[in-house]
């Protein structure tokens, strides 16, 4: 096992402007096999200039790793302007000790990311596999697609401890999302497959869905008016109304299922 600790230096976020640091080059896959000195020399984008990781982060490395699976990266400091944490990662582990910026876990296909705080927009965007745990809130477009793409999340598991923003899981085709808090408008928009469970409330869930299933354990506000009530079903001992939709996509395509208390 190898643990790579990267602590963002205070001066990076201290200015009038809080210019984001983009760390898509700092995944277990890309750092595996590198020495501390080599890691310090890996380039990261800070605004329009590429900087050495070692100039922006305090770097310490413990242990050794034979492969990415054995690498754990721990990110510390003010991470609220650190973007693309674990973007594209395939294996290993990342732990972020605090709120993280956009695109955390975007396009990840394996390994595990744990965010000990909130994650800003586009966490888990186009995720294919692996696990993403966000202990706080998650922003808009969690597990959604990139602009214009047909497909969002296709696999893996995402857990959010807090609330989520708009358009969560837009165009989702597979995988699983669990939201412990409330989900804001249009969760599961245009969803084609996979499963979303919302412990709290939801607003306008499931619009334009053509597949997959959404379960809302709390209240639903502004129910989409183009779903068909099919009857009731029992889940874990509780009665739920079962809707199919979205008929606004035409009956032929309306294969999504929405369970509402």
């Amino acid at each position, binding site marked *: 096992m190898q643990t790579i600790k990267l602590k963002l230096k205070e001066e990076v976020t201290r200015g009038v402007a809080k210019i984001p640091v983009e760390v898509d080059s700092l995944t277990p896959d890309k750092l595996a096999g590198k020495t501390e000195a080599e890691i310090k020399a890996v380039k990261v984008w800070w605004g329009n200039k590429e900087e050495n990781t070692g100039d922006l982060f305090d770097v310490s490395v413990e242990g050794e790793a034979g492969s990415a699976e054995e690498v754990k990266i721990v990110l510390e400091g003010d991470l609220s302007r650190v973007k693309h944490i674990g973007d594209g990662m395939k294996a290993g582990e990342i732990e972020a000790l605090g709120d993280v910026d956009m695109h955390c876990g975007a396009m990840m296909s394996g390994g595990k990311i744990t965010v000990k705080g909130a994650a800003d927009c586009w966490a888990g965007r186009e995720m294919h596999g692996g696990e993403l745990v966000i202990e706080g809130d998650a922003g808009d477009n969690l597990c959604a697609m990139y602009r*214009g793409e*047909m497909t969002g999340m296709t696999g893996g598991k995402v857990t959010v401890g807090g609330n989520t923003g708009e358009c969560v899981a837009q165009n989702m085709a597979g995988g699983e999302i669990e939201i412990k808090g409330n989900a804001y408008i249009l969760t599961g928009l245009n969803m084609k497959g996979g499963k979303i469970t919302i412990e709290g409330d939801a607003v306008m869930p499931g619009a334009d869905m053509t597949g997959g299933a959404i379960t809302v354990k709390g209240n639903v506000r502004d129910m989409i008016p183009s779903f068909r009530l099919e009857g009731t079903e029992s889940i874990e001992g509780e009665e739920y109304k079962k809707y199919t939709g979205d008929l606004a996509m035409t009956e032929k395509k309306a294969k999504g299922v929405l369970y509402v208390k």
Partner: protein
Amino acid sequence: MAEGELLIRNGVVYDPINGVKGEKKDICIRDGKVVESVTNPKVIDAEGRVVMPGGVDIHSHIAGGKVNAGRLFRPEDGRKGVKARTKVCRQESGYSVPNTFATGYRYARMGYTFVMEAAMPPLAARHTHEELVDIPILDNAALPLLDNNWMTMEYVKSGDTDLLAAYIAWMIKATKGYSVKVVNPGGTEAWAWAKNCDLNDEVPYFDVTPAEIVKNLAVANEKFEMPHSIHVHGNMLGHPGNYEVTTSTYDLVKGIKPYRDRPAMHATHTQFHSYGGTTWGNFESKAGAIADYINKNEHVSIDLGSIILGDTTTMTADGPMEYSLYQITGRKWTNHDVELETGTGITPFLYSGKSPVNTIQWAIGQELALLVKDPWKLALTTDHPNAGPFIGYPIIISMLMSKKRRDESAEDMHKVIFDRAEYCSIDREYDLNEIAIITRGMAAKTLGLHEHGKGHLGIGADGDVAIYDMSPEETDAGKIQKAFLNTKYTIKGGEVVVKDGEVVATPAGKTYFVTPECDEKLTDEMLVKLKDKFEHYYSVSFNNYPVQDAYVPNPYEIKAPWRS
């Protein structure tokens, strides 16, 4: 155009317009033009390498409203081809709908130096020109759409071909266009009411048929010394069983005497028009029937519209066709009807070798090339980006040159290829001379550009040269493909613009446009009617309509006098 002298030494030259078929030869260039000899040149050693004139693309959608609408609504395509700027190059983006810079660089890397933008809505001509100016390196021209125009249809109905000629002349001038483009004649106007037209249907409210439109436009076009014929995308594109509509369309110009030694009609992206069967279920190739027609007749030239497998963005003025396609896929769909003139439809499409229909389409494009005996009758295109992006040309070239590659590829396709297409039974392999014909010679001649220095390396020609990093004896399809994707050198107007596959200079291209010269009286008579259209039906004023000179900063004018 670069000043100074350049000598390309000892290359194996394929210059089909001048009958040069793989001869070891020097090319001398002075001040941007091919000359007999040079005295103190920079020297490029092309020993053992294939040398051709700069490529000429007869039909590609690279600039203008619908291309940009394609870019705008496909950020997912834009993210595919991103490349950072360099000291020489602007940043690149896109695959099937590359940005203007990538368009120029990628064509230049393949050795092309001239591209015809195949469809310019006259009302939005300024847009097309704004983008053409922004495409580096390539010389260019654009074809204004003139077939669904109310003016055209009214003159067709009244039978005034002289006035029709006056109209198209004025429009070609007003748009700084090159020739008459026809796209689903009548059908695009019908689409404004969500309808479509077959070749002999009546266009709603206009009391003319598409067949009459095509015929009259061909007659009107030949009233001038036009370098190019009418350029036709016929009715029923993409419909099973359309091959008979296609040959009936070809028949329309039989007997029309062209101004010069070229056919009276260029029929574009013929793959999409060579379909048999009655439904997608029994869909089959009719490339053989179309090729047979082309082989027996001289009045039509074609380009392929050959399929490149993968995701692309389809776009055409044929609005109803794009709607049908969108209904099949359910993907995003943009439509943009243009008042009194034309329309636009755009939708993304995935050509998959697992699909029986796509497999047959894929076979048809190549079958056409292999079954038409005389390569001077056809040009290589993918109707970029409709059948696939232009960056796929080297794939087609390698297929045409290698039966082995075709057989291997067929194995990966849907098995219908073995029984609903002739594909696997055709043994013909193209040689480099034939490739040079279908990628530059034929296009230059058909467009009349060979008389203006394009598509050949004779004395006085433009110093546009592609040097491919391959031996003329090369038979490995993979190596052929690679060589045609990135030149060793591309030279434009005597200046090295690509070296070892990298763009090293980005001079501005020229825009070629035709000025048909029409009798003033005829023009005045026509303008009375046209001004009435502006007064009552157009949403812009007459005086703000013609493209101002500022939009064509590097002009190349070709005058086309009235013929008799």
